[in-house]
């Protein structure tokens, strides 16, 4: 609730301040405008009257003053005073300060007009005439003042009302925001209470809260997916480790029991073999997680992908031959330079080749190739003529520990393609499984431009 209160107070304060600014502007403008207008009128009137004296003498001025009083509007002030300040002609009833302090020039003062009860504020222009008399002309601004006072009072009330309304709006706004955020917080709360299936309800308006909710939901989807993957991974890891571990245990146990040295040696060799398999599985898992965490980019170098494929093809050619397949590699003429992790890419490609030998050698032919798939991509392909993988099973094949033949032999932990994919991702590339009609075509497609970006990252 303190948050709601704070938002409400903030909204109220903002309303108050903005209204204050607007009202202040209005006050300042009207006040200023009114005074300027009066000032101009008064100065002008004083000038006209004093000109009368200059042109027509005292008599003309007397007439003019008289006319002004008679024909001017009720705010008009005009008077002719003798040198001591007594009124000769004019509509002044009382003037303050009294006539003794008469001075030339423009001023505001309080006075009462003939036929009126109240003292009013007036703007006056006082001229001293060459004959010693005082010409007083001006306008009472009393009415304008009253209007302004009313206006000021209204503005003040408006200000209070605006602040109150702002406060109320703030409360409503805070409650709305609080509720929307509260929904999200509640979902987050339930999720920390282990219920990952919760999702933020969306209003469907696509506003900022909906977008936040969508992002949180997307994040939750991803987390659930990762958790599920992790669960499967842990299960498969446990499953895959159990076999070598129990074999290892059995062999070690038998070796401990055996009294025949030759048999003991044989059994201990089995222990070592199983331990090696365990180490290989763990090493591959570690390598995958490291590639996924994108460590290793600091070891990127430039190298020719052709040479990499060349060396691997040469390396695996005898193994393929033993498995009954001819491994072919056609080296492109131009270099295929690539910026990447040479060792990891070699490992990824070797995994593809080993896979082809293991599952596709029956087809009698394995081909390794490097080519530009388009302007910005290099493709390292390994294809076989074996049974291939039906498209609906290709997702499973990429998965860690995913092996399509359920008979899990101890060779290979089913991590080959998963590691190749992780390494492709490290290079912002991808692992492709395609139909070779017949057979399987696996390819690692790598962006060429990647190098520039990486180089600048360093």
């Amino acid at each position, binding site marked *: 609730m303190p948050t709601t209160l704070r938002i409400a107070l903030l909204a109220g304060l903002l309303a108050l301040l903005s209204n204050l600014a607007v009202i202040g502007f209005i006050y300042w403008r009207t006040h200023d405008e009114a005074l300027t207008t009066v000032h101009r009128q008064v100065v002008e009137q004083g000038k006209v009257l004093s000109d009368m004296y200059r042109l027509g003498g005292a008599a003309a001025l007397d007439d003019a003053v008289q006319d002004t009083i008679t024909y001017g509007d009720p705010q008009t002030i005009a008077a002719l005073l003798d040198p001591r300040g007594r009124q000769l002609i004019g509509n002044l009833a009382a003037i303050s300060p009294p006539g003794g302090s008469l001075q030339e020039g423009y001023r505001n003062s309080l006075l009462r007009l003939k036929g009126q009860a109240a003292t009013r504020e007036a703007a006056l222009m006082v001229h001293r005439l060459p004959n010693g008399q005082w010409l007083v002309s001006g306008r009472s601004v009393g009415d304008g003042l009253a209007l302004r006072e009313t206006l000021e009072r209204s503005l003040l009330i408006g200000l209070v009302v605006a602040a109150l309304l702002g406060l109320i709006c703030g409360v409503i706004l805070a409650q709305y925001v609080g509720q929307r955020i509260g929904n999200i917080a509640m979902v987050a709360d339930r999720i920390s209470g282990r219920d990952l299936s919760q999702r933020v309800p969306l209003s469907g308006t696509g506003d900022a809260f909906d977008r936040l909710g969508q992002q949180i939901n997307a994040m939750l989807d991803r987390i659930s997916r990762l958790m599920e993957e992790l669960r499967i991974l842990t299960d498969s890891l446990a499953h895959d480790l159990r076999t070598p571990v129990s074999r290892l245990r059995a062999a070690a146990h038998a070796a401990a029991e055996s009294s025949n040295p030759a048999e003991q040696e044989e059994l201990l060799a089995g222990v070592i073999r199983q331990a090696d398999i365990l180490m*290989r599985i763990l*090493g591959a898992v*570690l*390598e995958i997680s490291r590639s996924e965490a994108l460590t290793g980019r600091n*070891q990127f170098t430039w190298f020719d992908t052709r040479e990499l494929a060349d060396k691997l093809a040469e*390396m695996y050619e005898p193994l393929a031959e*033993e498995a009954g397949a001819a491994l072919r590699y056609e080296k492109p003429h131009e270099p295929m330079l690539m910026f990447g992790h040479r060792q990891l890419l070699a490992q990824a490609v070797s995994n593809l080749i080993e896979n082809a030998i293991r599952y596709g050698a029956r087809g009698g032919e394995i081909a390794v190739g490097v080519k530009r798939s388009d302007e910005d991509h290099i493709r390292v392909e390994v294809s076989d003529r074996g049974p291939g993988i039906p498209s609906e099973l290709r997702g499973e094949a990429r998965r860690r520990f995913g092996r399509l033949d359920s008979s899990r032999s101890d060779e290979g*932990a089913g991590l080959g393609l998963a590691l190749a994919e992780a390494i492709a991702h490290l290079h912002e590339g991808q692992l492709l499984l395609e139909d070779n009609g017949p057979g399987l075509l696996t390819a690692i497609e790598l962006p060429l431009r990647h190098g520039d970006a990486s180089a600048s990252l360093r």
Partner: protein
Amino acid sequence: MGRKILLVEDDRETATYLAKGLSQEGHSVEQATNGQDGLFRATDGTFDLVILDRMLPVLDGLSVLKALRAARIETPVLILSALASVGDRIEGLEHGSDDYLVKPFSFAELLARVNALLRRRESRIDPADHRLKVGDLEIDPLSRTVKRAGKKLDLKPREYLLLEYFARNEGRVVTRTMLLEQVWDYHFDPGTNVIDVHVSRLRRKLDDGFEKPLLHTVRGAGYMLAA
């Protein structure tokens, strides 16, 4: 042929196991249990080999290695690490280690590498006679020709490299990973017996038709070329 080895390893069990095994091979082993102590002892430069754990208290293995190389102490260093990643291996080598072994490892693998490193130190190829000889086998690294009992063997380039590496480690166990690293320059663990296939091809060319085999399989460890 006992040599002085400094073992810097904080895990007591591993250290004892390794020290015992290396002593049985006739080496004298000194131990240090943290990086600072290890660096201090290694700087006197009288060791033939330093076996350095990567994760050490006080000062980690790579820092010890860097400090050693900065002090121009060129004693061969074999790094042991639980960090299996290929990247880590390369990093270790780049920092001036001579070899890199990932935990857990078999003692046979360690011993093979230790012997290869010690051997590298002592083997100065005689400039007058640059040829390598193992029994009746004669290898000329300059012309890359191989003769056995005076008869020229027809080897493919990779087979030649394999054989030369074997010959340079004559009488010592060479593991599959060592071959992959040294002959192919790949630092990963293949899931298949791809190395064995190459070795058995080489063996056919080398030993077929001769009474006494030169290329032996060492069970649980690797291979050895010996007369």
